[in-house]
């Protein structure tokens, strides 16, 4: 679904927001995104969908990491790595931008 990218310049203090040109819809617990600029559809798994929701609320990545750690039974380091990787993919695809 998302391009594999390296993760430079993503810090836990950053705030990323969904790009203005992206439509999203929760479809059975998973988000489907449509980037109006590239006319491309994307899908997110349930955890990606939760991250997308929290990005939309304007949280820092650190806050999102902490929220996810309280919601999911997974090591914090794993959650942080997955979070940063997804955010980097969203940014590379033009779906999210940092403040």
């Amino acid at each position: 679904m998302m391009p594999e990218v390296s993760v430079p310049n993503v810090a836990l203090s950053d705030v990323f927001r969904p790009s203005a040109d992206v439509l999203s819809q929760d479809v059975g617990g998973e988000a489907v995104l449509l980037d109006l600029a590239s006319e491309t559809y994307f899908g997110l798994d349930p955890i990606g969908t939760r991250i997308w929701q929290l990005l939309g609320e304007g949280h820092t990545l650190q806050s999102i990491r902490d929220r996810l750690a309280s919601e999911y039974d997974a090591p914090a380091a794993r959650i942080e790595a997955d979070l940063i990787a997804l955010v980097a993919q969203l940014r590379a695809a033009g779906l999210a931008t940092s403040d």
Partner: protein
Amino acid sequence: MDPSLTIAPAQVQQALAAPPFNHWTEPASGATWCSFHREPAGWRLRFVDLADFLVSADGLAVTACPTPGLDAATLEHLFLNQVLPLALSTQGKPVFHASAVALPAGTIAFVAASGRGKSTLATHFALHGAALVSDDGLLLEAVAGGFRVHPSHPSVRLWEDSRAALVGTRLEPGPPVSYSHKTRLLAGEGLPYCRDALPLAGAYFLGTGDSDRVRIEPMSPAEATLAWASHAFLLDVGEKQRLAGHFAQVTALGVLGCAWRLDYPRNYARLPEVRDALLAHQDAVDGAG
């Protein structure tokens, strides 16, 4: 509503000043066979050396401009199979690359890119009593609680090997068209056709044919949404409002819960097995509902 069709006098295709914003290519050669151009009053679809079609901005009017010597069957075929679905999509109607047949509980659609076998499967069903609804350009309409399928042109196009295996000499082919080697079979006696709009009972997205048995697997709503989106007819998605409307349609289809992946060996002798499996599956779905 179907767009009106006006046929202009034949004319040689002149070079166009503006480059196309999209084009279709022939899979084998890679050559462009249709290019899409924006014009002040709508769009021009240029089928190279065959015809230009001018589609109005509201999708309600089409003017066909054939090249000199183009036969009427080819012009009609281009309009019905290529231009009409695109014109309907500009009216905001959801149109997809899918064939469909009518079953007692409603219409089932076989959704796939060209060459995956959707026409063959629909024809097999039609030859065994399930009326043909659409060969391609599946037109849907949102209604309370779901979608309704509108029948399209009463014909089906098959490659020669499929035609020979499925119908042999039982059915007369329709007039040939000059740009395709497919045979067109017209619905009628032996190939029943459904003239009514029926509820969409199920959509089966055809796999590659690598499976050694009939496999029917559920799709999540998100998977179904993305699959519908990837098989849509869309003339021009340059307008955000139009694209947003399309997004709403495919997400509504995705949450219906009536989409499955279907794969099976591409072997004509196994088609009865595929049909039996699909009928049993629809019975089970209908019973569960």
